[in-house]
């Protein structure tokens, strides 16, 4: 594999996507309108848990312009929203119906929908719908004993377990046992563009359309077609510009199904745009888990075994991901360390809160926090440095590929490549750790509450097994790459264009990339789980290689030159040994390959090809976070002064975009570590339904992110050696900030939960009465 940067590979090229976006010409969900459309407004439960006694829609229905109001009975024929990876019998009873049937289970649970000719009017009418609910006691914590979900079913839907080795023996022979009780708060991805769905039925063609799609249009088409008993070819999803996805946007929610059903029944377009208040109570939450973890270690700090019991707060229903986060939490937790014996048991429990699902680095943000807290605690317990205890336990380069007896996303984990210790050393050298530690020691001696944090992690990326792309060159020489990928704002078009440009030999600005449209390509994986660049870029490369081959074959005939003496650059086939000699453009070749072209010969029409990429395994990038944090003892504020993220990417197609992913991810990770939390009162009323209460970091609250991007361990799993980047910047943000804050406080074991609030810090300072304990660096 050629690791050298090419003309397009490895270059920090400007994004092709930016022109319309910076000129205000983007087309987001709310920008989409169709003639004669209706507006949908959802009436949501004001109660966390209750029995629906009656719904009175008469006053609302009397408003002029209101076309219809539906309750559960009106959509009784629509099945609940299923799991993307297929039905799981045990979990099926916990799925959400598109309108609540009989019971409401969280504040925000849709109970009715209003359709009206105007969005304001729809909201006026929704206000007039009277929902009479008999309030039931809400269950608000996964720590509390499970209650009845429905007759014969408890709110503990299942227990997810993974493990191997003799854990009992490990604890018996332990030199020390370190035990921690840790929790991660409820927060989630909050894209600045709220969700939106516009359903449209084209009766003339018998095609049902969903606009405002994102993330996984092809997979969602399959699920929706099944729910609506339609063929997939008569149902199309369209992705426009997407103002952030982060895992939560683009899953199937009740509203997506409702606009489609309504468009069919009314034979009118139906538009729904989520507002911010709805978003914070209706769109998937994430993260909330409580871990009780124990490690058995020997006298040298080597891990002998880990035992973890987890309580996962799923919220009111099980949505499209099933138990994926839970499985991921248990599966990825040990790495990058070697753990001879391991057992994780996770109580997957429903509560009366907004349902939870994936958010950027699902399961890993949580597991990384827990595991790295554990490593810090072991270091303190054994009097080792936090660096040394990690170094001793890392999986070594010579052990790669490392087959782990655990599962992630339904596959056995095989850590494909890596030099974890090498990246640790590079990371320490880059931040000048020795000098930094001395500087921190001097500031501590001067009375400042300042500290360093360290966290290591293994990411996963590029779930297969297969993705395809289709490339066509038109007679103007413009190249169209049709993919089943999706763009949630990450620079997908630019990266695919770079890969196609490099492989085919054209300028990347001559390439148009299609994504997120089920009417242009039959299959697609979308954009999730950091897989687009690994899977779709490799598929694009396969297709580009085939187009290149065809172009060279045709050119060889025309130029009377052997194929192997030709090359393509800037869309021109030429002979490098005779740069001034005869040449032909790809556009001219495409012209000759038109079906009716007299010069086509025996070639199949079109300068086009379809390419497929297959892989057996995910790839496993990894990284090291180092943070410097200060505490203001007067306010309890945590100020992250420096953050360095070292990340092994295998190969960066566009390093600028990779760095952008890391920075953006860190900003979100900082939010979860210090600010963001969905709080509820004791009746299950959500307390964070505005941006004044749900605090996301702004540009002013995020320090510059120092990024060390490494390409030392390309993945053997794909020809480009790529590993994904989308979730790296957030993965260990909570872990590293917790580590730095605890070091700044000088009080081992006090940081046990996220987010770390100023209130919490002041409590810790008050209780410790200002006597910091010396911690090892």
């Amino acid at each position, binding site marked *: 594999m050629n690791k050298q940067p090419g003309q397009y590979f490895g270059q920090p090229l400007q994004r092709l996507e930016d022109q319309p976006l910076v000129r205000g010409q983007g087309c987001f969900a709310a920008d989409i309108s169709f003639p004669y459309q209706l507006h949908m407004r959802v009436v949501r439960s004001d109660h966390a848990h209750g029995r629906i006694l009656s719904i009175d829609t008469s006053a609302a229905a009397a408003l002029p312009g209101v076309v219809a109001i539906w309750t559960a009975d009106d959509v009784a024929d629509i099945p609940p929203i299923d799991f993307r990876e297929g039905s799981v019998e045990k979990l099926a009873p916990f799925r959400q119906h598109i309108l609540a049937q009989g019971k409401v289970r969280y504040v925000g649970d849709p109970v009715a929908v209003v359709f009206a000719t105007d969005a304001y009017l729809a*909201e006026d009418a929704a*206000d007039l719908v009277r929902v009479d609910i008999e309030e039931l006691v809400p269950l608000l914590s996964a720590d509390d004993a499970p209650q009845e979900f429905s007759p014969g079913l408890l709110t503990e839907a299942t227990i997810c377990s993974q493990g191997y080795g003799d854990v009992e023996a490990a604890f018996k022979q332990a030199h020390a046992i370190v035990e921690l009780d840790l929790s991660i708060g409820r927060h989630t991805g909050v894209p600045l563009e709220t969700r939106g769905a516009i359903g449209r039925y084209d009766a003339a063609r018998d095609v049902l359309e969903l606009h405002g799609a994102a993330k996984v249009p092809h997979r969602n088409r399959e699920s929706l077609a099944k729910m609506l008993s339609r063929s997939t070819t008569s149902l199309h999803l369209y992705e426009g510009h997407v103002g952030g996805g982060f895992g939560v946007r683009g899953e199937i929610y009740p509203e997506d199904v409702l606009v489609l059903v309504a468009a069919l029944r009314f034979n009118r377009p139906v538009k729904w745009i989520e507002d911010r208040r709805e978003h914070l109570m209706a769109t998937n939450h994430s993260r909330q888990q409580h871990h009780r973890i124990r490690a058995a270690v020997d006298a040298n700090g080597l891990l002998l075994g880990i035992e973890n019991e987890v309580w996962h707060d799923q919220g009111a229903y099980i949505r499209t991901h099933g138990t994926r986060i839970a499985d991921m939490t248990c599966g990825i937790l040990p790495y990058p360390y070697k753990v001879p014996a391991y057992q994780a048991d996770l109580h997957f429990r429903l509560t009366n809160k907004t349902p939870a699902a994936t958010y950027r680095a699902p399961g890993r943000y949580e597991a990384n926090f827990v595991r790295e807290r554990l490593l810090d605690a072991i270091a303190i317990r054994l009097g080792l440095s936090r660096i040394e205890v990690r170094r001793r336990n890392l999986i070594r380069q010579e052990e790669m590929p490392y087959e782990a007896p655990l599962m992630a996303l339904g596959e056995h984990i095989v850590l494909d490549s890596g030099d974890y210790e090498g990246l640790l050393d590079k990371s320490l050298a880059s931040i000048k750790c020795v000098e930094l530690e001395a500087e921190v020691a001097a500031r501590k001696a001067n009375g400042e509450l300042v500290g360093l944090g360290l966290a290591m992690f293994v990411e996963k990326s590029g779930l297969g097994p297969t993705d395809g792309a289709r490339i066509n060159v038109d007679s103007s020489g413009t190249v169209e790459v049709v993919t089943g990928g999706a763009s949630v704002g990450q620079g997908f078009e630019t990266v695919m264009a770079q890969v196609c440009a490099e492989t085919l030999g054209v300028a990347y600005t001559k390439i148009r990339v299609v994504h997120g449209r089920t009417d242009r390509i039959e299959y697609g994986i979308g954009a999730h789980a950091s897989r687009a660049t690994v899977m779709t870029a490799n598929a694009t490369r396969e297709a580009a290689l085939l187009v290149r081959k065809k172009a060279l074959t045709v050119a060889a005939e025309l130029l009377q030159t052997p194929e192997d003496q030709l090359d393509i650059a800037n869309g021109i086939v030429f002979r490098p040994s005779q740069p001034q000699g005869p040449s032909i453009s790809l556009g001219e070749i495409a012209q000759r390959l038109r079906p009716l072209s007299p010069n086509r010969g025996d070639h199949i029409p079109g300068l086009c090809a379809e390419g497929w990429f297959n892989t057996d395994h995910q790839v496993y990038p990894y990284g090291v976070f180092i943070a410097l944090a200060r505490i203001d003892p007067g306010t*309890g504020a945590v100020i992250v002064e420096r953050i360095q993220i070292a990340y092994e990417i295998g190969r960066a197609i566009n390093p600028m975009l990779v760095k952008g992913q890391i920075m953006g991810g860190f900003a979100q990770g900082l939010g979860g570590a210090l600010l963001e939390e969905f709080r509820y009162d004791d009746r299950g009323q959500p307390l964070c339904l505005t941006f004044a209460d749900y*605090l996301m*970091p702004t540009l*002013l609250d995020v320090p510059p992110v120092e990024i060390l991007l490494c390409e030392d361990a390309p993945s053997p799993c794909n020809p480009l050696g790529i590993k994904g980047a989308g979730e790296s910047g957030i993965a260990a943000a909570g872990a590293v900030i917790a580590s730095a804050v605890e070091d700044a406080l000088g009080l081992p074991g006090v940081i046990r939960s996220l987010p770390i609030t*100023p209130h919490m810090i002041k409590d810790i300072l008050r209780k410790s009465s200002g006597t910091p304990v010396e911690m090892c660096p």
Partner: protein
Amino acid sequence: MKAASFQYYAPTSIADVVALMAEHSDAGIRILAGGQSLVPTMAYRLARPAHLIDINRIAGLDQITDHGEFLEIGALVRHEGFAANRLPARLGAILAHIANHIAHRPIRARGTFCGSLAHADPASEWCLVAATLEAELIAESARGVRTISSADYFRGIMSTALEDDEFLTSVRIRRPADDTLFGFFEYSRRHGDFALAASLVSFQLTAGLMQNVRLGLGGVEDYPRRLAEVESLLEGQSPSAAVFTRAGDLAAQHVNPSAADVDYRIELVKTVVERALQHANETT
């Protein structure tokens, strides 16, 4: 988050405003100046005024006028209007400093000083300014013009002495002696958020001793107010870190936080009072 239905007016004179207010005061009427608090509240349907009077077309309300004895701030003076510094030196500097703590730039370009006072958020910086310094609020209605002293103005959380038919046309701040020192400190979890606690202090130094001490606290109780006990403690003292710490401790003993996190807010009071005093002392 679409506002409920309302009737919109865009009068061009104060006389038209007060006439409209007299006519509709029973039906729910609100003034739209910068709209930075009101419009989101309407979008959430927490406020549902039947009538909305947009005053942005009224000429002459966007001025800060130096009357010598006092500064008069018109109803359309935006937060960012305090940055352009044509005001008396130290007072102008502290008002510009405080203005920069209000939210973010786009909000500062729209939101108004008088709008903040009419809205009376407990954590509003301008409410703290009015409560701490000597301010008079000019309220006009069809019934006439009256002047409300800042000491009598605040009644509760977002509740003031303004009547339903009254329009806050301007606020006058008495111009302090030229050698007055000012200090301000606030804490919010993010840049630009409403403060969890804020303090503004002013005093003169005569022979090294603090005189005419004014110390206000905002963001903690239902509305900002001066802390008389702390002012008395500081009056006649020589400024020092120890005195400031004592002032912070005393302030903490005399506040009644309305928020749920009482213990935390009380600790914050110590910090903001101490740091506002330090800030004033650093400007000497």
